[in-house]
């Protein structure tokens, strides 16, 4: 199978990740942060190592600020619902995933909070102005994706964090599509809360994610329970990361993630980005030669930076039909709305969706050639 759906989840996982997960079932089978027998301490140490690596990877302020979750959606829910107060207002971009939109819509529907949508434009200044226009007296945060999961567009998040801080707002970055592909630095980029998946660009196992807090942010916990600390008290501990990590963690997943971060560091994030971007440039160039292909972004333009994600359509065909034919040829792509109706509305693709191609470090040029060949045949038959 040619797998081109790495924006949903990366596949295959690096060998070191697969092996470490299997090994963890044997070697680190105890609960973490609970017992004090040898296997429990060793397991706790492994979890801590992953926290250290993630802290360094994203240049977080402190290791305890790295909070393990189960995916990026959980992280975003924890962040949004953890900072909201009655009457709060949020500003989001018009590229956001439902992981941002739905929690906010729910808060809106139960009368807790409201939100406004700002437009990401080709011009950074215009984008900043669009966000600034939406700021109200009761605004508490700007939430922005690191890159659109459909079109790869990278909003000017560093400038948006400056804008947020200028107005006393928090800045939350959804790193689902950039973690492990594009360098993100919590200090330089001014990120107050970073939400990330572990199983996408970071190449870790499913069921892993992180919410990383910068210092001095008050976030309420969403889930309370056993943390292995201050157990006599019926009140949830206020210390990090315990406050947000009630219940047994995904030990094997986190150990896999730890090895995945090592893998990314060994390969080099710039090399990964360069490899994937070169494939998308090549794909774009080839698709441009096929009659009936509709493209939405331009990897050769310097107007707006793009993550290595390419969406396309074949004229007069639904994206699901194209993706279905490709799947019959053993090529895995993702079609439809990609849980991002805002982005599709912006690009007027809500009706047809798009066929999304998202490579990984393991994608070869020959994989893209096979895809192009198949798309060419589908377009000619249409």
């Amino acid at each position, binding site marked *: 199978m040619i797998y081109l759906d790495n924006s949903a989840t990366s596949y295959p996982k690096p060998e070191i990740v697969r092996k470490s997960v299997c090994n963890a079932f044997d070697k680190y089978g105890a609960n*973490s*942060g*609970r*017992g*004090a027998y040898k296997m429990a*301490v060793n397991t*706790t*140490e492994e979890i*801590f190592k992953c*926290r*250290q690596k993630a802290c360094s990877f994203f240049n977080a302020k*402190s*290791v*305890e600020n790295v909070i393990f979750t189960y995916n990026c959606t959980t992280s975003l829910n924890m962040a949004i619902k953890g900072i909201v107060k009655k009457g709060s207002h949020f500003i989001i971009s018009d590229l956001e995933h439902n992981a941002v939109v739905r929690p906010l819509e729910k808060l809106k529907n139960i009368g807790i909070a409201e939100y406004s949508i700002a437009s990401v434009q080709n011009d950074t200044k215009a984008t900043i102005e669009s966000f600034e226009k939406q700021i109200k007296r009761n605004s508490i945060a700007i939430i922005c994706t690191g890159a659109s999961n459909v079109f790869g567009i990278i909003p000017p998040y560093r400038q948006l964090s400056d804008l947020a801080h200028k107005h006393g707002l928090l800045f939350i970055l959804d790193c689902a599509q950039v973690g492990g592909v594009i360098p993100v630095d919590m200090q330089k980029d001014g990120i107050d809360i970073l939400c990330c998946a572990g199983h996408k660009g970071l190449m870790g196992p499913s069921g892993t994610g992180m919410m990383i807090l910068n210092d001095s942010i008050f976030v309420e916990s969403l889930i309370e329970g056993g*943390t*292995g*600390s*201050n*157990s*006599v*008290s019926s009140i949830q*501990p206020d*210390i*990090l*990361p*315990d406050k947000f990590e009630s219940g047994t963690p995904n030990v094997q997943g986190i150990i896999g993630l730890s090895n995945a971060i090592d893998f990314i560091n060994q390969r080099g994030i710039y090399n990964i980005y360069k490899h994937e971007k070169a494939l998308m440039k090549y794909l774009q160039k080839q698709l441009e030669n096929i009659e009936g292909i509709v493209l939405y972004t331009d990897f050769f333009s310097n107007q707006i930076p793009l993550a290595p994600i390419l969406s396309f359509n074949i004229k007069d065909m639904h994206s699901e039909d194209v993706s279905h034919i490709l799947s019959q040829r053993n090529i895995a792509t993702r079609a439809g709305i990609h849980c991002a109706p805002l982005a599709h509305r912006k690009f007027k693709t809500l009706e047809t969706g798009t066929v999304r191609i998202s490579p990984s470090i393991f994608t070869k040029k020959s994989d893209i050639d096979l895809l192009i060949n198949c798309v060419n045949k589908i377009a000619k038959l249409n």
Partner: protein
Amino acid sequence: MNRIVVKFSSVTYAMKAKAYIESNGGNAILRKGVKNTVNEGCAYSLVVNGNIDKILLGLDINKIKYTGYELLK
């Protein structure tokens, strides 16, 4: 040179302190449930050999929160 127990409210802080002490050439052993932690419930501690003032100063400078310490005989 003393043998001391440094107490932490969270295993993450204990691990952070352990990493700090070991990176400075010391040795720290993670333990659970030392005396005087009964009222707090579960807690972790490190058994460390070294100069108590130096160790605690290092933890303070590195903002590694501990809840207390005691000398071991």
